[in-house]
């Protein structure tokens, strides 16, 4: 499987460096009183933040159609974040449903102090953290576990590698996983991630760095 170039100096990546020695606290739910940092003008991932805000105002005043449109605009990202955070489609579906219901229920309480996306993704991350706390520590069966997966060998191997990455991502400690998912998977900036997680930008950078290190070490073990 290991058909790529050997690691620098022929040893594991970990051995190249001094150990970080730091550890993270347990997952903490993110407080509602986060930063008032706004997302970029186009909104996260190119979504139209002005349109979001327009819909939020209408949804907050009781327009169910505006609420539905708002949720439909963000549903894939809600699900995707949950999937990458939890590593299981079933869990991601559960969390997506919970998030939709929560947003529908509390949209009137959204103050607008932060961008809607900041508020929404904070809810998603918190729901994922809560969901994991309730779960027993079992590893879900992923598609890559199916030895009978058909297809050319290279495609199967590539798919398995991606599945292994998803599993490795899901195994990261929560405080490292959340910022990495938001930054690497969702393309949010450090600043946006910091606003969502209610952390300082340097702290987000540090966590993402440690998450990357852990991820590449895991992936090297796999390959």
């Amino acid at each position, binding site marked *: 499987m290991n058909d790529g170039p050997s690691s620098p100096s022929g040893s594991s990546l970990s051995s190249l460096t001094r150990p970080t020695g730091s550890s993270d606290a347990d997952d903490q739910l993110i407080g509602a009183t986060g930063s008032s940092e706004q997302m970029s003008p186009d909104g996260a991932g190119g979504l139209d933040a002005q349109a979001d805000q327009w819909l939020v105002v209408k949804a907050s005043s009781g327009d169910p159609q505006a609420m539905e449109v708002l*949720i439909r605009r963000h549903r894939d990202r809600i699900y995707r974040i949950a999937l990458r955070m939890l590593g299981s489609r079933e869990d991601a579906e559960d969390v997506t449903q919970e998030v939709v219901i929560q947003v529908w229920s509390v949209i009137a309480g959204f103050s607008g102090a932060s961008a809607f996306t900041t508020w929404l993704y904070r809810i998603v991350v918190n729901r994922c953290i809560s969901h994991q706390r309730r779960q027993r520590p079992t590893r879900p069966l992923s598609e890559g576990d199916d030895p009978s997966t058909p297809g050319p060998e290279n495609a199967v191997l590539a798919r398995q590698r991606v599945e292994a990455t998803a599993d490795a991502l899901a195994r990261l400690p929560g405080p490292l996983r959340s910022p990495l998912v938001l930054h690497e998977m969702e393309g949010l900036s450090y600043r946006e991630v910091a606003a969502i997680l209610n952390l300082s930008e340097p702290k987000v950078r540090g966590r993402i760095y440690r998450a990357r290190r852990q991820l590449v070490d895991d992936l090297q073990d796999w390959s």
Partner: protein
Amino acid sequence: MTTPPARPYEGDEQPDTDRLPCGAPIDRLLDQVSAGTASDRTDHQEQCPHCQAALAEYDRLWTPVRELAADDVKAPDSLLDETLRRLRSTTSDPTFASIPGPDGTTRVSARVIVVTARETAQDVEGVRIALGKIVGPEARSPGDPAADDENQSDDSLIGARVEGPARDDGPRVVAGVAGRSTAIEITLAAQYGVDLIALGERLRADVARRIGTVTGLHPVTVSVVIDDVFT
């Protein structure tokens, strides 16, 4: 020809940052790989075998992470539809339009009309975001004189006559009747700078055509409310 030794890395990272033997910080290299710019080497990296090897290895290991990020994951439609259906049930408009035919009646919910109008409006150039709603006799209270002549012949009837449930069962939707209060209303925010009058006309035509095609309720009155403009 011998390669000159690489200059030591000179950067602004904290002293406790993990580094390669040449002194280059690992986090900077991972940033570079994550950004997809591993091949855009700095002067130091051009000369440094440690950096070149690390960049190559990190880039190889990071490939499946990029593939995972590029995976176009969609929320299952059934999942969201069911959740929204349950949430809507507390607020939904229960009205139906009934289109009589020779072999039976087709019932079209008000929601179908609204969604069709909204999605059509959303696709019109110059529209940034749109919502639709049905405005009409359902807003009238029982006994309203305007409601009493619904079953009368009307010269202004220019489209399919559409009726909802009996009055005792709830409100009615009448669409395609000119001169009456039943209508589709589109509320939207437009792109700043577009000709709003032309936008309204274009939208009105597109929505009426689409609703006619999809529901048979053709033509309908389409009111356009331009609620905001976005720069």
